[in-house]
């Protein structure tokens, strides 16, 4: 991916942080919080709806997202993957995708 110059648009692609080398902590490791993304790295979690029944985010046909009552299956277990910055399923390590 090239870095270019363009007239200012204010978009995120034109915004940068400066972090001095001496202050650079590196990327969060397994078990540590990624503060930008609000999730701990590779720490398994459920996603629980705040609708009254508190159903869990789940998969049907191992593909599509739905809410279901807790069932102990891997289709309800997720983790944040630091290298790709995606949320993955413990079922087959594929990522959330619109």
């Amino acid at each position: 991916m090239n870095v270019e110059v363009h007239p200012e648009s204010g978009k995120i692609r034109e915004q940068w942080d400066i972090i001095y080398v001496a202050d650079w902590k590196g990327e969060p490791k397994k078990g540590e919080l990624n503060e930008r993304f609000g999730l701990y790295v590779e720490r398994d979690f459920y996603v629980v709806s705040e609708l009254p029944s508190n159903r869990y985010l789940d998969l049907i046909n191992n593909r599509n997202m739905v809410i279901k009552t807790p069932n102990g299956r891997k289709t309800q277990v997720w983790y944040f993957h630091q290298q790709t910055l995606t949320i993955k399923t413990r079922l087959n390590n594929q990522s959330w995708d619109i």
Partner: protein
Amino acid sequence: MQIWSTNAKWFQIFKYEKNQFINFTSGKVLDVTGAKDEEGQAVGVYGNNNGKHQRWRVVYLDKAGPVQSKGLNKDFGFHINRPFYLISKLPFNRVAECIGANNVNLKRWRVNTKAQQWYFDGVSKTIKNNNWKSHSLDIQGNGGSTNVRCTTTNSRWW
């Protein structure tokens, strides 16, 4: 929303903030479609209106309580893992039996016949057969039929 092979493009990047999963680029949030609090209801992304159908709790497994493995499940009205008979109130009081890991028929009660015994499984939240323990009561045709079968557990709504 779905899961797909990881490509780390913008439509796969979400952050968790103030109880919402927000797509980093579009700003759309994880959303229970139609705000319907129903089993198997689809989940997608939508513009943020901060409704309860767009808010989620993250429960880390190492902080979650153990799955209930015995006692009464109040939501479903069954004692977990405790075998029972399904006895018809018709005059002969026959019981439901799983025949050949497929059909469910009314039969006369027989002593120690595990195919006539059922139990509520606290993990899958289904009624399993005590003989074929990988099989659960199931409405045939993905819920589209009136026939009840005993088939491989899938925890779908039917």
